[in-house]
């Protein structure tokens, strides 16, 4: 019953029109091998989702791409190689990263959080303008502008985290399990907002998730990660025709 894909699946060689090109990514925590030769790409304006069981290496993959985790292999963004260990450069290049747990600063207010989201922006006026733009996009951020982030609900914190990611004007958003800690009804809403953002601003999204159905509804393409390897790539449309994914997890 289980798909026996012991070797990494043959994915299409990344084309030159790809915005993000990750090739042969490997990562370990000490002796623990977590990623083994992962190759994927994200095209401009595309929503790509990486699905897999808990512990498959999804978070490590995002961190390796962002450069927060020592890695083997290469990551090319918009034609330029991304460095490891230089988050300022990566954010300035146009990539945002939103972690799975505590994606906000709990002790600070909403506005302070947003300002930190844009800390790499070079001028205060630029930051100010972005802040105002985001408050229009997400009225919540205006209503609760002085509320301490830790006192908001899980869903509200997620919205804040999206706002923070957008502050630095990214062209690619790396989102780690945005459905974590939110009630199922809100998940629809938040995922919808992600899709709208992507379409509205031509923003590419690389989304790592365990909630398969919700991600497939907003994605264009999907990669399946199992035990540190990509075992399959397909279009979201094709994925949605499946009844279940027991054999891929």
């Amino acid at each position, binding site marked *: 019953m289980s798909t026996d894909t012991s070797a990494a699946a043959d994915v299409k060689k990344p084309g030159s029109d790809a915005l993000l090109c990750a090739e042969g990514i490997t990562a370990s925590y000490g002796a623990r091998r977590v990623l083994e030769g992962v190759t994927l790409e994200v095209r401009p304006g595309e929503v790509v989702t990486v699905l897999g069981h808990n512990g498959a290496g999804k978070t490590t993959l995002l961190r390796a791409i962002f450069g*927060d985790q020592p890695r083997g292999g290469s990551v090319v963004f918009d034609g330029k190689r991304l460095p490891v260990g230089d*988050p*300022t450069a990566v954010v300035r290049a146009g990539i945002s990263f939103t*972690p799975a747990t505590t994606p906000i*600063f709990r*002790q600070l207010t909403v506005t302070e959080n947003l300002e*930190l989201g844009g800390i*790499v922006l070079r001028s205060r006026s630029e930051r100010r303008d972005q802040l105002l733009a985001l408050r229009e996009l997400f009225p919540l951020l205006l209503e609760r502008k002085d509320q301490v982030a830790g006192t908001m609900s899980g869903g509200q914190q997620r919205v804040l985290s999206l706002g923070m990611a957008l502050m630095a004007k990214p062209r690619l958003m790396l989102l780690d399990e945005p459905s974590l800690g939110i009630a199922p009804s809100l998940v629809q809403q938040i995922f919808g907002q992600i899709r709208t953002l992507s379409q509205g601003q031509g923003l590419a999204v690389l989304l790592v998730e365990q909630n398969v159905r919700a991600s497939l509804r907003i994605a264009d393409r999907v990669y399946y990660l199992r035990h540190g390897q990509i075992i399959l790539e397909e279009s979201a449309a094709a994925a949605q025709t499946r009844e279940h994914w027991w054999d891929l997890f």
Partner: protein
Amino acid sequence: MNLELLAQLLVSGVVLGSLYAAMAVSFGLIYSTTRIFHLAHALVFTSGAYAAVMSTQWFGAPVYLAMLLGTGFAALVGLAIQAGPYAIVERRSTESINVFIAALAVSIVGTAGLELLFSATQRPLPGFPDATMSLGSVTFTVVDVVSVVLAWACIVGVAWFIGRTTYGRSVTAVRTNPTMATAVGISRRRVYQVVFAVGSAMAGLMAQFVTLNGAASPTMGLRYVLIAFMAVFLGGIGSIWGAALGGMSLGLVTMLTGLWVNLDYGTAIAFALVILMLIVKPQGLLGRATV
């Protein structure tokens, strides 16, 4: 109860406590953000004192300039220690105890180095107004007043910087959620440098007042830094006001023991109370604070 004695001891306690409070905040800022048990803070303190003294002896600098130079020099020493030995050891191994050992080693080398360069003789810092003032039966010096004012000015300044400026908030970011700080593009290395610079400058400034009240000697720093450690643990790691409160309490306790026993025992009793607290409530009096 001897009210006159009480009043005098209270005032002395406030003076000492303010010094301890500022030292605690200076250390707490560094420790809570970087988690480095920065024992070499004592060396930073001491070098600030020596820089001031030697600039009066070598260049004939006026005392206020000397104090400023001392403060600045301390900041530089702190930065150098962070960028040099600490950074190298941190890269080499992930066990935090190794950086503590590096701090220990730096302290050993630095203290002995100072003795070699300047011998163990006490060196005063002359030139500051040394008038004594009195309020009723209580006496205190100009140095006391200035040190209290500056100590609290620093503490308030740091609290303002951390709480009200964007850059200061990036320090809070690194302290409370390093993953997220990296995610928004904050450079941890830069933030470490800032806290080391600010904390070291503050220690250097306080060293000036200790020198004015006595003299500079190579081993002067250890006692104040250990008290700063204890004050931070007492007040809760991560809280500026907690550290200040911890320092103030230790200063007051040290002095107020003079009501019942020989003042010599004051420090011992303060330390003993810290031991008690560590045993009973290891998270500190204010617990794991936020800001």
